[in-house]
Structures are given as structure tokens and as C-alpha cells.
């Protein structure tokens, strides 16, 4: 169990879940997207999933989230009561445009039946964590892309998830915003201790964010490369130009290039 304190001083406990995927298979009509995947993820791990287009990384994430059922194989998550403590961040923020930032952040709790006072308090907390307290009464149409993504993150965190899944969340943002959010995400992970699975096509991002990176094969056959990254726990932008990062990136790059 990891203990942490939110911006308002609220004490929270999160701990990551462990996942075990065995021989998972999924096809859509005739196209086999994942043919035979076996993967173990430890509790509290920050895992990056890399791969070329069509390798099934988004589908894999949706299977883990429970949005798609595999055609074959098994998925085990321990402990088992994690259904509501899985959070998902999409590539676009996908906010409800007719609600304020605060209401959007509180949405998961609302759907789970949490009382208004509590969910507003918790939403305020997560908005503070992503640095958006000032914008809480605004509407999504009035926000920049980066701010909308922060709201999406705040929304994901409001249920104190034990598993956080992100599908190329920062791909549509400009570089500086991306860098900032990378750092923020890593910090939030350290604070809370949840398991994070981060799908990306950016080798730099994968190397910067994760403890462990896997590269999937082109045809969804399986894992081409599974590498533990030898990098410090606390990461900042200085790391981006360091030889250590370059070294890790080279290994990932080589695997990616082989997969085309």
C-alpha cells in the first residue's frame, strides 16, 4: 500500500494491481490483431508499450480495460475487485462539452453514485494536482488542447485508480506541453503508486516515462523486446539529453526498426 497526500492534504492510498495475460488472441472479422500474447505486469509498474501501426497496442489496452473481450487466452488481474479502479485516458481528451471542467473531472464519481459534495471535493483535488484549479468553471470549448488533456487526466485520477491506462494521450499536443505533462504524469505515478500502462509510438516518450518498455511485433504476434530501463527514479528534462537515455532509446529503436 502506498500512502500519499493530495494537494489539499487529503490522505489517499493507492496501490497498483498486477496483470497476467496469457496467450491472448483477438481478431476483428478476418483481421487478426493480436495472435498470441503473453505478458506479466507487476503491481505498481510503469510500463510503456511501443510498436508500429497495426501491431494491436490499442486493442491490447482495451482488452486490459475490459472494453473488448479476447477471442482466446486469459487475462487475470490481482487483486480482483479492480473494475472501478481502472482509468483510461484517450488520445483526445473526450470531455463532455456541455459541462464545466469541474463537472467533467467529477464525472466518474458521479457515474459511480458518489454524493455531490464528496465528488466535487475530490475533483477539486485532482484538478489542483494537474494545475487547473483556476479553470474549473470554464467550459472545454474555452480551453487549449493541453488544458483539455489535463482535465482528462484529472478525470482519470479522481477515482484513485489502481490501474491507469493511457493510449497515446499526448500525441496531439505540442512538444513543450508534452514534456510538461510527461513530467507531471511521472510525478503523479510516484505519489500514488498505481500501475500505469502507457501506449505510445514515441521512443523518446517511452524511454523517458517508463521503468520497463515492450515492443510489440508488427503483426500482433507477440512481444519483440521486453526491456527494463536503467534510468533514475526521479526524471526531469535534463534526462532528455543525457547519454543514459540515448542508450536506452537505441535499444528500443533497433527493435522498432526491425519490426518496420
Amino acid at each position, binding site marked *: 500500500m502506498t500512502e500519499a497526500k493530495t494537494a489539499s492534504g487529503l490522505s489517499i492510498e493507492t496501490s497498483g494491481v498486477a496483470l497476467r495475460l496469457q496467450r491472448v488472441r483477438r481478431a476483428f472479422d478476418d483481421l487478426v490483431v493480436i495472435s498470441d500474447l503473453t505478458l506479466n505486469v507487476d503491481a505498481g509498474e510503469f510500463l510503456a508499450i511501443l510498436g508500429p501501426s497495426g501491431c494491436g497496442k490499442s486493442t491490447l489496452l*482495451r482488452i486490459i*480495460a*475490459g*472494453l473488448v473481450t479476447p477471442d482466446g487466452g486469459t487475462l487475470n488481474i490481482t487483486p480482483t475487485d479492480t*473494475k*472501478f479502479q*481502472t*482509468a*483510461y485516458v*484517450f488520445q*483526445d481528451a*473526450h470531455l*463532455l*462539452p*456541455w459541462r464545466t471542467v469541474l463537472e467533467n473531472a467529477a*464525472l*466518474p464519481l*458521479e*457515474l*459511480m453514485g458518489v454524493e455531490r459534495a464528496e465528488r466535487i471535493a475530490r475533483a477539486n483535488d485532482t484538478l489542483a494536482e494537474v494545475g487547473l484549479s483556476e479553470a474549473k468553471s470554464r*467550459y*472545454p*470549448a474555452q480551453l487549449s488542447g493541453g488544458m483539455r488533456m489535463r482535465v482528462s487526466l484529472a478525470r482519470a485520477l479522481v*477515482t484513485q485508480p489502481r490501474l491507469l491506462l493511457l493510449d497515446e494521450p499526448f500525441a496531439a499536443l505540442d512538444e513543450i506541453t508534452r514534456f510538461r505533462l510527461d513530467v507531471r504524469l511521472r510525478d503523479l505515478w510516484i505519489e500514488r503508486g498505481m500501475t500505469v500502462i502507457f501506449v505510445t509510438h514515441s521512443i523518446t516518450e517511452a524511454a523517458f516515462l517508463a521503468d520497463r518498455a515492450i515492443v510489440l511485433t508488427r503483426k500482433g504476434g507477440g512481444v519483440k523486446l521486453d526491456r527494463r530501463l536503467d534510468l533514475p527514479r526521479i526524471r526531469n528534462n535534463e534526462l532528455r539529453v543525457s547519454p543514459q537515455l540515448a542508450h536506452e532509446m537505441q535499444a528500443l529503436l533497433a527493435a522498432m526498426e526491425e519490426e518496420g
Partner: protein
Amino acid sequence: MWKTLQKAVPAAIPFLIVTLAMEWLVRAGWIKAFLVPPPSAVFETMVRDWRELFAALARTSSAALIGFALSALGGIAIAVFLSSSRAIQQAFYPYAVFFQTVPIIAIAPLLVIWFGYGMRTVVASAFIVSIFPVIANTLTGLLSTDPALRDLFRLYGASPSATLWKLRFPAALPQILTGLRIAGGLAVIGAIVGEFIGGQGLGSVVDVARTQQRTDKVFAAVLLASLLGLALFGFINILSHVALRRWHASEQN
């Protein structure tokens, strides 16, 4: 107030030009007055027969508004029902299309037999003529929900009714309002047609004046009917502005 008037000016100019042109064309003899009355005659008739015309306008307005309200509520309800499953859609949507294709003139005598001569037939006519756009547009809106948001709602275990009221319905609002805009004008037309058959209101004024060959009165009544349609349209626009101004592209700028 002044700003609203300013917005009305571009629309008013073509109207003024056409009115003046018509007046000149008729007075100069290019168009025969008994076919198309000069605007001045129409205006005169409006003033002279205002009691009769405004009583008729009140009747037609009530019927059109009630018919419109029924088709708005009924249309939305039917669309919600149709959107609940593919099977239900395939089974029942073709019958909804019937509302669009049935020629109201042909079934009007039936309406009279069922509802009698009077308000109920007129309301029924307005309802039948105006409901389909509400159904079609609402259904499209409900079926076009962002799949990622649907996934999000699923992820947090939202019930189908929570998904309907918190996600699908608000997301469909722009489309619903489009449907209502179209339905408003149709409700007025439906009411007038119903009045041809069922009597009273502006439709009756048109019918009787036509027999009397009083084209000036026909035009006066038609003008009032158009204004009624315009008012309804404007009302929906206000509704749309209030509902969407914070978040939909159509109301921003």
C-alpha cells in the same frame, strides 16, 4: 435591443425591395390585381379586417403550438425508443417514415371522422405533418454519440439510462434543435391544411376568401401564417442559443 434591430436590417431589405416592386408592377398593369394584389391592398385589408384576421391567427397559433409541442415531445420519445436497439429500429422506423410520406390532404377526411370538426382535427393535422423531422433528427443525434465517451461510460459501469440522460441526450441536443426548427414551420402548415378541412382559423379565412375571389384577403392571411411560422422559428433559435451557447460551435462566433 438596438443590436437585435440591427441584425434584422439585412433581412428586411429584400423584403422592402420586393414589396415596392410588386406595388409598382401591379399599379402599372404588368400584373393583374385580381391574380396578385398590390401590397397596399393587402395592408388595407389587414387593417380593415383585423378583428377577424387576428381572431383567426389566435386559433391557428394555438393549434400549431399544441401540435408542435406534441410532435416535439412525441417525436423525441419515439426517437429515444428507436435508438435503444438495432432490432427495434429496423422493426419500427419504417412506420415513422409513414408520417413523412402520407399526403395529409388524403387522410384529412379520416381525421375529421375520428376527431370531428374543430380544434382536435387541426392539432392532429399539425402533429402528423411536423413529427417526422423531430424523429429523424433526434434519432440521428442519439445514434451519433462519440464512441470513446460511450466506452468511458461503460468503463465506470454507467447504467443505460444514465448513459442516455447524461451523455447521449445532451450530445444530441444540437441535432434535436435542428429537427425542432424544421418541425415548427411544418406545424403551421399542418394547422392550415387541417383548417381547410376542419374549419376556422387562418386556413378557413384563406378558403373562404378564395371562394369569394378576395385575393387581397388570401394574401393577408397567408402573410400572417408566415409570420407565425417565423415566430416559432425564432423561438427555437432562442432556445438553441440558451442551450448551446457555452459549448456548441453553431452558437459561438
